[in-house]
Structures are given as C-alpha cells and as structure tokens.
C-alpha cells in the first residue's frame, strides 16, 4: 500500500492545488520509502484539526497496512463517499489474459469518472487502498462492466492444472490447482476384514485437512470448521448411500456405505469374500485456500481415484493376505499366485464435477477467489455428473435464489464440466504415454 501519512517532515507538502501537484509529489518521494507522508491538500480534515496524525511517526511494531487503514478510516468516515479525486492507476502486467485490455480500459474509466464527479481534489487514494477499504464498491464498479478485477469474465473459471502421481509412496495421488487454490490428494490401501453385513464390499475413508499453511485464519490445534464440513460433503458426494452406518475407529470416522450407482462400486474393493477386503484411506490436504475449496478437493479426489493402482497381493500359507513379491523364490512357493493380478485399477462410474458460484444482486460469479467469497455472502455449489444428473445443489443460506438463477448456475456447471473432463483426459493420456 502506498498511501502517504506524514512522518518526519514538519512542513506540509503539496499545498498547491494545481493539477500537477500529484506528479510533483510522487517524483519527490523515493521508490522504496518506508515513511508515510500525508499532505494537507489530500486530507482537509487533518488540516483543520491541528494535533492529529500529521506529524506522528508510524508505530514500528504495528504493521503499516493496519495503521494506514485505521488512519484513513478515522479521517474519512466510511459512510460518506470519499470519492477520491484521482486514482493512481496500477495497470497489471497481464497482457496475455483475455480480459486484460478491457481491464485497463475499465481502470482508466474509473480514474476519469472519479475525477469528473468530484470537483475538488479532496483526496488521493490508490487502487489498492480503495480495494481494501471499500471492497464491495470496488467489485461493483467492475461488475457493472461485466468483468472481475483479475481480468476474468463473470462465467469464467480460473486456470486449472492437474498433476498425477505427486506422492510417489501413495498408491494413488494427484495435485490440483484451480487458480491459487492447491489441493493434494493421496490414497493408501490397507487390507481389512469386511463386516458381516457386507462381506464382499470394501470401504473408503475420506478425510479433508486444512493445515495452517493454507490460510492465515487457520491456526494449529483445532481443525478449522470449514475442514470438517468439507470433509463430510466430500464423503457424501463421492460415496452415495443406500444404508449408512458410521463407526468411530480412533481417530478416523469410517463410513460403511452401500454404493448404488455412484462413482465407486465398493464391491470392486473386495478380495476374498468374507475374509479380506480393501480399505482405502483418501486424505486431501489443502495447501493454499484461495476460494472454491470444494471444487478443487473433488477434482483432486477424482483424479487420485483414477490414478490409483491397487497393490498386488497374494494369500500366504496361513491364509493371510500379504504383499506379492516377484523375487522368484522357487521352492514351494510357485503355487502362491497373486490374488488380484488382473484387477489393478478401479472402474469409475459417473464422475462428479462441481462448480462454486458467488451470487451478488443479479450477477453470478463462477469460481470465486477467497476475496470474492469473503465479500459476497451467497455461495452456491452445484455438482453434476457426467451423465448430466444433478448430484448436489448446495446453497447454505444467503440471498434468495429464484428459478432463473438455478438454471443459470446449472448451465455454468455444465460448461465447466466439459472443461474439467478435457483436463482430466489430457492428464491421463499424458501419463499413459510415459
């Protein structure tokens, strides 16, 4: 933030009201200036009340951002429109983005619009400061032109990349990035005894972790509330249920489910009916939380299951399942055959894909970042599977949604589904080539 609040200069700067004042002020301040300078012309409230922030040194222990924000909000009360006379335009270096040119035009228009509206040069504020202090108005100015501050159109999702096999020690893994949101999913397989009610079905345990690395609001110790909720929603989406029981086996909660026609058929995870079946532990770690966590987590889980290679096992003499080694021990062990030599990969049924949208007045923003999610209160997550059925329409509270909005969200999700299917196919064909 480059807002200037005065420190050591007793003499007020920039008293002249000429249009060139801004430029002269800027040229006098060195590039990496750590002091904050305030001019009397910029904040007339300061000029009137003498003993305010003009000559105070910023507290070195307090972070400068917080200080500036507090001072400005004290000087210019938030309810009155500050209407800064001009904005220093920071044009992002994003020439390759499709909306870049329009974004520059918008920011120039914002600048000129503000200069025209308020006659006096009562304030000078940078784009960043306006964005932090009045985020909703900053966004609404962009939404009026049907564009978002990062250059995307309203229905466009962020760049998505997928990397399979990110964790080499796991049986299946995937690293997904949607914009900055990063998720790492890994699957470990273990043999267990199936329950009496479902002797030829395996089991899957899904856990979603949000370590403190992902976001400044998550602290070590208690798991973030969002993590618990996302964990449950992922379990519900990936494993659809007919009858459901839950067992608490420390510390994991394991859901024994019957899968009707969901993505994964638990019968494929069986080994020896009644005696042995696979238990798959799917762990998803959020490495960077920048909005649309459920979308990224679901995509990484789907990719990890597609990448999964079930380890080859065989039955040893005592009737226990052991890992199959091909070291060629000859004597007496030739009859030990792999129990599941042919069945190494899971066949996935209808794959679910999801899209989170933020709703604000009449606008629908697809794939919001964390900044957009924090400003806009209404979020809708639509999950559809590849056979065009609605798996989930999740809208917890927020503004009222009418039928037109429901159909628009579904339409955006269908578009996104096609993009994601293409990305998933490309990732797999790339892997098979290796």
């Amino acid at each position, binding site marked *: 933030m480059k807002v200037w609040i005065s420190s050591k200069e007793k003499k007020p700067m920039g008293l002249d009201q000429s249009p060139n004042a801004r430029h002269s002020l800027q040229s006098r301040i060195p590039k990496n200036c750590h002091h904050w300078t305030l001019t009397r012309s910029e904040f007339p409230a300061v000029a009137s009340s003498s003993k305010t922030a003009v000559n105070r040194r910023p507290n070195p222990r307090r972070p400068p951002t917080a200080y500036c924000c507090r001072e400005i909000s004290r000087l210019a009360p938030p309810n009155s429109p500050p209407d800064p006379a001009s904005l220093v335009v920071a044009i992002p270096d994003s020439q390759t983005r499709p909306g870049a040119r329009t974004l520059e035009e918008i920011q120039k228009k914002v600048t000129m619009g503000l200069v025209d509206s308020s006659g006096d040069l009562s304030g000078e504020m940078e784009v960043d400061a306006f964005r932090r202090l009045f985020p909703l108005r900053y966004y609404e100015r962009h939404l009026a032109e049907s564009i978002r501050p990062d250059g995307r159109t309203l229905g466009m999702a962020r760049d998505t990349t997928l990397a399979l096999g990110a964790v080499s020690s796991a049986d299946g893994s995937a690293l997904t990035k949607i914009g900055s949101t990063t998720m790492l999913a890994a699957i470990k397989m273990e043999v267990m005894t199936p329950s009496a009610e479902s002797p030829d079905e395996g089991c899957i345990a899904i856990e979603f972790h949000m370590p403190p690395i992902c976001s400044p609001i998550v602290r070590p110790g208690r798991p973030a509330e969002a993590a618990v909720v996302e964990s449950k929603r992922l379990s519900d989406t990936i494993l659809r249920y007919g009858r459901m029981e839950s067992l608490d086996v420390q510390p994991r909660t394991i859901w024994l489910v019957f899968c009707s026609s969901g993505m994964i058929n638990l019968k494929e995870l069986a080994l020896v009916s009644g005696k042995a079946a696979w238990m798959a532990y799917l762990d998803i770690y959020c490495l960077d939380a920048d909005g649309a966590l459920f979308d990224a987590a679901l995509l990484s889980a789907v990719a990890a299951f597609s990448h999964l290679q079930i380890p080859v096992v065989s039955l040893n003499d005592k009737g226990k399942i052991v890992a199959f080694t091909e070291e060629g021990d000859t004597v007496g062990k030739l009859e030990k055959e792999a129990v599941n030599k042919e069945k190494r990969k899971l066949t996935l049924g209808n794959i679910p894909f999801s899209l989170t949208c933020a709703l604000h007045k009449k606008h629908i923003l697809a794939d919001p970042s964390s900044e957009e999610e924090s400003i806009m209160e209404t979020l809708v997550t639509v999950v559809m599977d590849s056979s*065009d059925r609605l798996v989930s*329409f999740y809208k917890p*509270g*927020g503004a009222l949604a009418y039928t037109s909005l429901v159909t628009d969200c579904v339409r955006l999700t269908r578009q996104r589904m096609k993009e994601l299917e293409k990305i998933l196919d490309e990732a797999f064909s790339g892997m098979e080539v290796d």
Partner: protein
Amino acid sequence: MMMETDRKDGRTPNQPRMLSCSRNILHRAHGSASWSRGETKVLAAVYGPKAGTKKNEDPEKACIEVIWKPKTGQIGKAEKECEMIMKKTIQSICLLTVNPNTTTSVVVQVVNDDGALLPCAINAACAALVDAGIPMKHLAVAICCCVAEEGSVVLDPTKLEEQQMRGFAYLVFPNSALSALPKGSSLVDGEPLEHGIITSVTHGVMSVDEYLRCVGRGRAACAKLSDVLRRSLQKSE
C-alpha cells in the same frame, strides 16, 4: 402414466405429517420452541443478544452461533455441517445490523429423529427466534422433498423412506407475506418473494427437472406451512 407411490403410513405423496408447534416451553431461555413432524421432534432455545462477538466475526454485525446437540452419541461431522447450514440460514433472515457486536446463541436439541430432521430444526429455531424477539426480515419455512425411483416427488419422508428414495432435498423458503400492496407489485424476476430459495441441501442423484419439480412442490407446501405457522404464532401471544 406415473403411479403414485403408496406410502407405508397411508399418506398421499403430497401430504406432510402431523405438525405440532409450541412456544415458550423453557423458562430460563430467552426464547424457546418445540417443533414436531410426526415422530421427528426438535427442541430449540435462543439465548441472546449477549454482549461481544466471537473471534474472527465482524463486530459491526450481530453474530449468530448454533449449537446442535444430537439425541445420542458425540458431536461429529454431520452435526458440525448442520450447525453451519443453520447458522448461514439464520444469518440471512435476521437483521444483523440492529444489534451490532452481540452474539445470539441458538441451541438445538434433537429429541427424536424420524426423517426430515434439518427442516424440522430450522422451523423450530425460527419459532424460537420469534419467541425471543430477535429482529428478522421474514421467517424461514423448511420442508423436505424426495424423489422416488420413478421420478415422482414425495413430501416429508420418514427416515425409512429417505433411505429408500433415490434422492432428497431439504429446502428453505421465506414465509409468504400478507401485504396490503396489489399482487403484482413486489415481483422479482416475475416471481413473488416467497419463491426464492434461502437454503437448499440435496443428497442423492436426481435430474435437473426433478430438482425443479421438488422446488415447485416445496414452495406450495411452504406457503401452506407458513399460514399454519403464522396462525400458531399469533395464537400463543
């Protein structure tokens, strides 16, 4: 021709269970209500507004806190999810700027769970908020609709029906407004205010058309339910 499903307790597909609602049952709580639909019964209590907001919450608005107590067992992920959904629903119906920097706690105790638990809890919480006098824009009326195998929509399932059906949706709508203005004047997108969905949580798979049919049926049922609710709240003044 689609056959109407015969339900085990003899109801028609469009018929919800017996409803009973009572307010002011707990004397220490600032507001309390009990709501039961057939065998499903939920008790809600509201304490507030209390001073101060929780950490990480906006002090310029009132904060809502929901505590969900299951009938048996420890609090797990399902309870946390229900708490979050209820908190967001209540936040969207309350006027949060009237009492800034305060916390209102809503405690929900499940007395019996026989299907459609979350809608029952939302209705109970709403009645308890009215009993406590928390300022709200409008009430929230919740219903559960499920989709049977052949695609017909069934209202207010029992727990057994929920498990057997292909999918179900919990829907929350605002209550219908009694207004002196002429009918068409307050339409949004050509639909009256009570057609908007506040909250929707679906489980299971259904087609988009089936979901929209659920929403339509849910709206009609909620309109009737909000009349019943209004009469019951006015009566026990």
